């Protein structure tokens, strides 16, 4: 009686890979050609389904890396023991196809009408949806002040480094490098802590809107620090990821 199943209202569509760009040694951005894409909000994600020749299929969820109006892109970190990410980052070539559904999620999203000031805090590849927010903010001409604090293991692991380094004026990008710092490093070092937030976080009185994305322990630690700094829980949006 599988025919009586709850009918999916969210349908899969075939995406064709337009380009694959290496961001770091373990991270690639995949640009997709999606003729029926309805548009998306910054911060949303999409589900990918890849099917092997023997019919085995696996689904994964990835944040959308691009702003609305740009070609849809995802940025994928290769997990050594992963089932899907090694394929997406190492074997996928332009012209290959996969199934995609989305956009998904109305919670971890930002648009100019949501205001700010924006405090974006990323751990590792958690920077992906926050990059989409920064791009959308810029493309939409929003003047909402934005700060991104990006925690990465080393400078080599920083995704979108050239792009992020170009933000000026009321969009600031700061890094903290947790494992190794290059000689003469002028940014933060170590895990995000209260002393770092004291220098980066907008005072709660300015009614900031915070988005935190990263591995689960990172997100929970940073969210607690912000709540301790009197950020209301409703203004601290979180998204946790992990190799599932």
């Amino acid at each position, binding site marked *: 009686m599988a025919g009586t*199943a709850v009918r999916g209202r969210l349908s899969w569509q075939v995406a064709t890979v337009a380009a694959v760009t290496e961001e770091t040694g373990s991270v690639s951005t995949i640009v997709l050609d999606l003729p029926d894409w309805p548009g998306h909000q910054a911060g949303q994600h999409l589900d990918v389904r890849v099917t092997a020749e023997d019919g085995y299929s696996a689904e994964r969820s990835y944040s959308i890396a691009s702003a609305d109006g740009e070609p849809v892109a995802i940025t994928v970190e290769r997990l050594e023991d992963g089932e899907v990410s090694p394929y997406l980052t190492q074997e996928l070539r332009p012209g290959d196809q996969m199934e995609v559904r989305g956009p998904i999620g109305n919670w971890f999203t930002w648009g100019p009408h949501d205001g700010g000031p924006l405090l974006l805090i990323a751990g590792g590849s958690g920077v992906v949806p926050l990059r989409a927010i920064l791009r959308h903010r810029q493309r939409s001409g929003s003047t909402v002040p934005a700060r991104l604090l990006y925690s990465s293991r080393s400078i080599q692991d920083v995704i979108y480094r050239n792009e992020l380094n170009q933000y000026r004026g009321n969009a600031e990008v700061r890094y903290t490098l947790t494992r190794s710092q290059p000689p003469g490093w002028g940014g933060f070092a170590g895990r995000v802590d209260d002393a770092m937030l004291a220098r980066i976080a907008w005072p709660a009185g300015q009614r900031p809107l915070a988005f935190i994305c990263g591995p689960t322990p990172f997100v929970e630690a940073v969210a607690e620090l912000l709540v301790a700094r009197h950020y209301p829980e409703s203004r601290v949006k979180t998204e946790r990821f992990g190799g599932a």
Partner: protein
Amino acid sequence: MALDGNAIGGLLLEIFGSDMTSAEATCATCGAVRPVADTMVYLRGPGTVVRCCNCASVLIVVTRVRGLSCVDLSGIAALEVNPRR
């Protein structure tokens, strides 16, 4: 490792027909009211298990058998789809 309710946005959209990550769930055990996005989600079991981020009680279990989604919502007292922020 727990993820959060954002990770099952697609699954819940498929089942409910509208976005549920911003819906507010009331835990039937402790009464906490939180966005579904903030719940703890475990994908690695035989089904998808969603737990309350306040008391860790099971809120939702989704299992899929031959394309049929079986949804157990007995851990939820209320689910408000368009909460006023």
